[in-house]
């Protein structure tokens, strides 16, 4: 006799796992916040809990450096992983990712162009440049990949991403060549994929731009689910695919553009997090999207805390760390796909 899971009384059987998973991730994120808040060469220490009041210097370091940095790490991580999940849904392909598809390097090139050729200095100008760069690449990649069937689209996309990454790298090199010393400093400070210059203006910028993009992405969940049936069937089920694509592309370009403008290129987060979570939670975007956002925030917070403390008082660029994590995972993924 075959035993079956009894049907449950609540309307959708996915619901308890959904809230449970999200609550678990939220708790873990809280833990990572506490860990991040209390670790570092200066600032608040866990001894605060024992009643030892921090010195004014420690307090100032914590308020002016640590707190905006924690905020930024959470927001950037959530955005990169959330947009990775959404792009994978949009391209119906588990290998889509903002950095792999060249979105991040496009945004990076736009920021570099803005700094060097237009002599821009302000942070918010960088935001705009990053957004426009990401948007341009997004539209290009989408034109190339979306009209082709499955496997062919995958190769086209990956090759396009490769080409864009290479091109952006070459142009970036050229720009470094013509940049002044001051601009060069600004570029290299920004370009390594680090949260080390996160101060309040950056955190406020992120707070203004990223949560709306995240909310916007969350609202695409149902549409992304339907899209997995193919465009024809999805249309039959009431989906306006063009509106969905527009929404995902705009939100992703805005979010990723701002992330790159703030923190440089942080690789593989958008690939790694949704992919792992999908194996665990299944492909439904109503759960996957929020879970990826929480997971991305969690991972980047932990990675950034490690980056700050491993070689303290020196600091490893966090982009380096995520690439060290994500690179091998990606290779393993490719090996497994072949098998």
């Amino acid at each position, binding site marked *: 006799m075959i035993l079956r899971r009894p049907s449950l009384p609540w309307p959708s059987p996915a619901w308890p796992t959904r809230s449970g998973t999200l609550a678990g991730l939220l708790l873990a994120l809280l833990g990572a916040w506490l860990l991040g808040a209390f670790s570092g060469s200066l600032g608040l220490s866990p001894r605060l809990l024992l009643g030892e009041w921090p010195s004014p210097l420690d307090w100032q370091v914590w308020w002016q450096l640590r707190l905006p940095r924690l905020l930024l790490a959470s927001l950037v991580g959530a955005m990169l992983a959330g947009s990775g999940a959404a792009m994978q849904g949009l391209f119906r392909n588990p290998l889509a990712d903002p950095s792999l598809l060249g979105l991040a390097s496009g945004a990076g090139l736009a920021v570099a162009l803005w700094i060097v050729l237009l002599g821009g200095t302000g942070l918010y100008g960088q935001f705009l440049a990053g957004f426009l760069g990401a948007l341009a690449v997004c539209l290009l990649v989408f034109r190339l990949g979306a009209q082709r069937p499955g496997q062919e689209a995958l190769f086209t996309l990956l090759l396009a991403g490769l080409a864009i990454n290479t091109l952006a790298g070459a142009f970036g090199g050229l720009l470094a060549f013509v940049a002044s010393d001051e601009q060069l400093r600004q570029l290299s400070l920004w370009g390594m994929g680090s949260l080390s210059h996160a101060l309040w203006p950056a955190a406020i910028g992120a707070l203004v731009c990223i949560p709306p993009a995240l909310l916007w992405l969350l609202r695409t969940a149902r549409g992304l689910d339907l899209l997995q049936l193919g465009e024809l069937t999805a249309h039959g089920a*009431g989906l306006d695919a063009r509106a969905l694509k527009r929404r995902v592309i705009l939100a992703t370009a805005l979010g990723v553009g701002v992330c790159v403008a703030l923190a440089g290129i942080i690789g593989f987060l958008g690939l790694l997090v949704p992919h792992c979570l999908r194996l665990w939670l299944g492909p439904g975007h109503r759960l996957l999207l929020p879970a990826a956002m929480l997971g991305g925030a969690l991972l980047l917070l932990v990675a950034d805390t490690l980056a700050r403390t491993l070689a303290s008082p020196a600091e490893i660029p966090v982009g380096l760390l995520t690439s060290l994590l994500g690179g091998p995972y990606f290779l393993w993924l490719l090996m497994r796909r072949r098998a």
Partner: protein
Amino acid sequence: MLTLFSAGFTTTPALAPISDRLMPGELLAIVGPNGAGKSTLLTLLSGFRVPEQGSVCLDGMPLTAWEPQALARRRALVAQQVRPSFDWEVRELVALGSDAGAERVDACLAALDLTLLAERRLTGLSGGEAQRCLVARALCQLAADQLVGETDTGADQAPPGLLLLDEPTSALDIGQQQRLMRLLRRLASERGLAIACVLHDLNLAGRFAHRVWLLDKGRRIAAGTPEEVLSAARLASIFEAELDEAPSLAGGPPTLVLAR
């Protein structure tokens, strides 16, 4: 009721204008050679492609004027051999496109013999099982559980809808083909669903459909009852095939067999 007012396309893939109507309770088979425009016709009927001339109306209102969500509750589509991307659980997949509760999903799963596969993942399924999942999903979207159930209670709650299927039997064994075609026929004649179904198997079309449209080179060249449309001589010339005609069964159209 779905009405076509000389609806067609001039751009490729072109489809010469068709005027006809699809009544509730009718099972229509669309047949024709490869590339005849059968799938194109389904995109027209579902509203995915908007006709360049004429119009397609459901209950007197053009498909383009319907609010997408409202239309989705009245019209569902099973496309040709599309494997959904990612590894869905069967139950999740069947619930896509509707806010169906567990009961409705269960009923639709049962209608397609999928109950035992409900917790399985899509990559573990055979082609035929995956195809049945997609049919179950379309039924679920139309709230057709009330239609497949044994009781009559839901019959007046759910207005009859339109179900479009593109070669739903292509991956099914003969037992499953029979069960699916019987289900479709029952949905049509007992519960008033209008069903248009692209079929490659002419005998299946002749045996189960109320009406047949024969397409060739982007035109509809015959429409009528199976007996009227599916004559061996006509089909032989259109499909460029040599056919033997076996005696018809129980008043149906002749059974067609490929000549050796």
